[in-house]
């Protein structure tokens, strides 16, 4: 190592010798002061000194301190003719200068010079810097140049490599800036390059391009396969330095195998066979004795193997390969390397979703169960749970659920919640005997009550309500469960609900007589939280109907001060209403109001939704397999989630008068959980609404309010649901859905402010601030939405959806969203990047729906996205003759739009000018004979063509009015521009 800086080494030693954090801080501050004074001092610093100080700053920064000076000196270093100084300058800039620093222009000039250098080392340095920063501006400036370096014959290999990855970076930043078309085929042919390093770099670029444009790059499939074939059949000596621990070119092999996962299996038989041979060779090598004992050898070899298996699973077409892959993974399950066991469990999960290999996976059940019991690393156990879940079907469900329940008792807290969901789903999905299902869920509550979410216990109630054959059993079992000295509150909830509905079915047994049932429930009452107490009150009133003989006992409870005067209004209200219902109603009225619940509408299990939220990919794959199986007549058996078994009591019970509260307890809370967000097909509205309607006579006044609540919240959430799934492929949480706005729109006033400007606050309430910053280039735009959490608590289940209220918008705008995480921490701000392509003129406005849970309450906010047609307009200058010529050309009645309106703001000429310019029009002087009038022009740019537009605005100061005339090639555009501008002046 040749060059070193003494001052830097001394400084680093000093820092290392500091005994305390304070001492270190002191030393750093001293150094910062020193450097600052050197930089500011009169004495000119030479390059070496500058380099040394810049390097020190870098070191200080890397220790975790903020650096706010030295940028200029670093940029100066770029001009140095000494390579080492230049290099440090670039390093500092790559690490420390933000994209929008004003020095960037200078940096880019330097980059340009170095790119043009004859010395490849300089060119590489520049390429690496561009790749490290990769800003949009850089994309604009360099993306058109770099392809030349990549495909030009005389550029050196190292330059080609850096150029490929540099271009990849710019493509990720701003795909529209990278011109692909002209050099597509030459880029594809880089796969044939003699230099393995060039191919290795180029494949990454090609994969990114393929994802964007698979058809144009189809040619890469056969080339990749031939390249792969050459690698896998080569002996490890052939590839010299590209062989890694006796494995030929593992990096390149993996990249090629990845690339192929973007396409379906090749159609051409020769090509397909060739690929199959490659994959077989890789599988064969897996069973050969290792060429080295080093872990590097086995890692590299298995990396290729796992990638090959991924491709086999992706193609899902060759049963023999799938089964071989499965047996290979099976061997890894008992390997002594934890990493391999982990990966084998993970890959097998996917194999379990293929109908060809599902049965082969099932053969390993015992090993997986052992893993669940004996693995020491929780993340491996987690994978075992996932795999058991994936391999579960009707034949092994009872066994697997049993194992999972056993594991639940000792499972890590971190995975209990998910485990509970999985058990609940499997039990429901594969129950042939519903007493088993009820037992399983009650066991869940017993073993891990805290982790049983609302969805789970709602579900067991829905199923019991819908299945007559299990009601008596459920009542008996839950009664027994409540007899335990201590039982979880969730058990009390389920118990209250079920005994309230079906207590009569077990009342014949002296051990569970009416009054025993009531006493048993009431014994838990005082230990429960208010919501549970409220639920129990509803259960009591239902018992009054079932068992008139205990009416007085219940009246005593309802009229006790503890309830009738409870500080919780919900309890108080229920107590007083139920009291008058119990006291004053005839048995007939009671029987009508408190009738048994009608069956719940059929729909997808909400717990499944809950799980899908956690593991979207696997869950979907598993579901897909389920559907496939159902389509095949052979597997016949109606798979059906339990509840989808035919509703037992099909008769709609007496106009649905029976929905007393209990139903509200379930449904009301349910719509709060937001489980519909992922676009589940929640057919009808929540059950209570269905049951509600009648409201029945008697004293059930409060029902109305609860039904209303439920009705409103559930309808707003279900309207967001349809078709969300279609957009969900790439983006997980943030999806763009077609049609169907949800909720009412807020913050319109602020939206108007964005017509003429591009950043500011779009919406703000006590919890959330939504800021927006946009920039537009021709027909594309980038909207960054900033969500700021104003509270000291996190916002959970955070998600945003873009709704297109008008279906035509789907063709007019191409919207892509880079989603935010599902949580906004306390006082944290996150941003979401929305990129928009204007395909054609549009006038409707996309909506942004934001949902989250704040301190347990689901919130939903719908805003108009500040995206209007004028954003894609570029002002256009022209002389008077041209203006009038265009004006005349565009004067068909539908091309002209004129409005006369009252001024909305003070009629100040300067302000108006600013607004017009902000709106996107130019201001042309010396055209209108009246200097008080404004005229100008603009071109709306869309992917389907440019739309020239002209305007004239005539103020009338006396009347405080304007006359606005817009001419445009497209009729809709003149109208929309007119409307928009009208609101601004």
């Amino acid at each position: 190592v040749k060059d070193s800086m003494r001052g830097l080494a001394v400084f680093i030693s000093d820092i290392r010798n500091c005994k305390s954090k304070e001492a270190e801080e002191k030393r750093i501050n001293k150094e910062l002061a020193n450097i600052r004074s050197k930089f500011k001092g009169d004495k000119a610093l030479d390059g070496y000194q500058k380099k040394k100080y810049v390097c020190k700053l870098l070191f200080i920064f890397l220790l975790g301190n903020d650096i706010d000076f030295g940028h200029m000196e670093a940029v100066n270093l770029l001009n140095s003719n000494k390579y080492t100084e230049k290099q440090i300058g670039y390093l500092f800039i790559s690490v420390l200068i933000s994209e929008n620093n004003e020095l960037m222009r200078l940096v880019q000039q330097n980059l340009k010079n170095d790119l043009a250098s004859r010395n490849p080392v300089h060119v590489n340095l520049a390429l690496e810097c561009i790749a490290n920063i990769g800003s949009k501006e850089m994309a604009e400036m360099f993306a058109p140049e770099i392809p030349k370096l990549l495909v030009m014959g005389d550029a050196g290999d190292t330059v080609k490599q850096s150029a490929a990855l540099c271009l990849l970076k710019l493509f990720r930043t701003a795909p529209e800036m990278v011109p692909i078309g002209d050099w597509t085929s030459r880029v594809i042919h880089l796969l044939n390059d003699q230099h393995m390093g060039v191919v290795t770099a180029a494949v990454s670029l090609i994969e990114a391009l393929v994802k964007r444009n698979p058809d144009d790059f189809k040619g890469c499939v056969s080339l990749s396969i031939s390249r792969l074939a050459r690698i896998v059949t080569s002996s490890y000596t052939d590839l010299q330095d590209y062989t890694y621990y006796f494995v030929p070119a593992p990096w390149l092999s993996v990249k090629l195998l990845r690339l192929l996962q973007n396409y379906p299996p090749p159609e051409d038989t020769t090509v397909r066979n060739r690929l199959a041979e490659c994959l077989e060779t890789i599988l064969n090598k897996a069973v050969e004795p290792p060429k080295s004992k080093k872990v590097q050898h086995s890692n590299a070899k298995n990396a290729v193997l796992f990638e090959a298996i991924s491709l086999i699973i992706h193609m899902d077409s060759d049963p023999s390969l799938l089964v071989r892959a499965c047996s290979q993974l099976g061997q890894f399950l008992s390997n002594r390397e934890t990493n391999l066991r982990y990966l084998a469990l993970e890959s097998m999960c996917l194999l379990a979703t293929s109908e060809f290999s599902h049965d082969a996976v099932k053969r390993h059940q015992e090993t997986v169960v052992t893993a669940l019991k004996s693995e020491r690393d929780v993340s491996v156990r987690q994978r075992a749970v996932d795999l058991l879940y994936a391999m579960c079907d009707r034949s092994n469900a009872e066994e697997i659920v049993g194992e999972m329940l056993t594991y639940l008792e000792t499972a890590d807290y971190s995975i209990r919640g998910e485990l509970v969901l999985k058990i609940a789903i499997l039990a429901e999905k594969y129950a042939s005997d519903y007493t088993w299902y009820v037992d399983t869920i009650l066991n869940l509550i017993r073993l891990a009550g805290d982790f049983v979410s609302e969805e789970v216990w709602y579900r067991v109630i829905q199923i019991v309500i819908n299945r007559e054959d299990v009601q008596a059993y459920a009542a008996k079992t839950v009664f027994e469960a409540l007899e335990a000295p201590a039982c979880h509150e969730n058990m009390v909830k389920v118990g209250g609900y079920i005994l309230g509905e079906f207590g009569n079915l077990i009342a014949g047994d002296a051990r569970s007589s009416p009054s025993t049932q009531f006493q048993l429930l009431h014994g838990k009452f005082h230990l429960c939280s208010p919501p549970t107490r409220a639920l129990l009150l509803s259960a009591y009133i239902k018992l009054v109907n079932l068992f008139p003989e205990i009416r007085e006992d219940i009246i005593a409870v309802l009229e006790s001060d503890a309830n009738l005067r409870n500080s919780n209004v919900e309890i108080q209200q229920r107590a007083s209403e139920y009291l008058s219902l119990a006291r004053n109603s005839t048995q007939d009225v009671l029987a009508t109001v408190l009738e048994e619940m009608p069956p719940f509408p059929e729909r997808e299990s909400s717990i499944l939704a809950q799980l899908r939220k956690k593991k979207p990919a696997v869950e979907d794959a598993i579901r897909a397999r389920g559907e496939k199986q159902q389509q095949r007549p052979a597997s016949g058996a109606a798979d059906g989630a339990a509840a989808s078994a035919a509703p037992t009591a099909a008769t709609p019970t007496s106009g649905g008068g029976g929905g007393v509260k209990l139903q509200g307890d379930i449904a009301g809370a349910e719509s709060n959980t937001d489980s519909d967000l992922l676009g589940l097909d929640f057919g009808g509205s929540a059950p209570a609404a269905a049951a509600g309607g009648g409201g029945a006579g008697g004293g059930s006044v409060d029902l109305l309010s609860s039904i209303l609540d439920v009705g409103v919240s559930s309808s707003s959430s279900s309207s967001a649901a349809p078709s969300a799934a279609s957009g969900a492929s790439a983006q997980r949480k943030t999806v763009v859905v077609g049609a169907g706005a949800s909720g009412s729109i807020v913050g319109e006033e602020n939206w108007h402010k964005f017509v003429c400007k591009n950043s500011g606050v779009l919406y703000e309430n006590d919890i959330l601030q939504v800021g927006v910053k946009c920039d537009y280039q021709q027909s594309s735009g980038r909207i960054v939405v900033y969500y700021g959490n104003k509270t000291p608590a996190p916002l959970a289940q955070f998600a945003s959806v873009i709704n297109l209220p008008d279906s035509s918008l789907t063709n007019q705008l191409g919207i892509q969203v880079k989603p935010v995480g599902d949580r906004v921490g306390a006082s944290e701000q996150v941003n979401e990047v929305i990129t928009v392509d204007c395909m054609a003129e549009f006038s409707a406005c996309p909506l942004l729906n934001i949902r989250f849970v704040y301190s347990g309450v689901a919130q939903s906010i719908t805003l108009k996205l500040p995206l209007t047609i004028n954003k894609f307009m570029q002002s256009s200058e022209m002389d008077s003759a041209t203006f009038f010529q265009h004006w005349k050309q565009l004067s068909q009645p539908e091309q002209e739009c004129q409005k006369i309106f009252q001024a909305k703001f003070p009629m100040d000429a300067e302000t108006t000018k600013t607004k017009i310019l902000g709106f996107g029009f130019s201001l042309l002087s010396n055209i209108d004979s009246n200097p008080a009038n404004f005229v100008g022009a603009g071109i709306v740019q869309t992917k389907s063509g440019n739309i020239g537009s002209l305007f004239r605005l005539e103020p009338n100061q006396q009347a405080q009015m304007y006359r606005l005339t817009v001419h445009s090639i497209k009729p809709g555009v003149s109208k929309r521009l007119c409307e928009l501008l009208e609101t601004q002046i």
Partner: protein
Amino acid sequence: MMHYMLLFSRQGKLRLQKWYTSHSEKAKKKIIRDVMTMVLARKPKMCAFIEWKDLKIVYKRYASLYFCCGIEQQDNELLCLEIIHRYVELLDKYFGSVCELDIIFNFERAYFMLDEFMLAGEVQETSKKNVLKAIAAQDLLQEECDEPKSLLEELGVISTGLE
């Protein structure tokens, strides 16, 4: 695609951070803190892969240093372990049996080396020979134009590496 690579010591001191996706300084600090805490708490023999947020964390310990990468769901974990290993080999060859101190005192070299090996979060050149050749070409340029030679040699802070 790799999102970041972090090097830190067992004592939790960060030695190198390389980001392939852009984050605010605040966000970076949080990621560093969280990842470090998580990885340092791992016991030996545990799986070297951790699912964390939307990424997979792959880590490996060499003596007192942890090398830790954040990669995407579809990336290959085992190969990422070998990315780490190859990088360590490169450093080792360059510094001559590398230790934590080499990386502390020559952090800029560690960065230069990484840029030759990986770019834009993807592996650029896997041949050890070629990477070291590129670095040697850079060093050669330095020699040609460095003047205060005598001063530097006299100090002799470090002098191993390539011939």
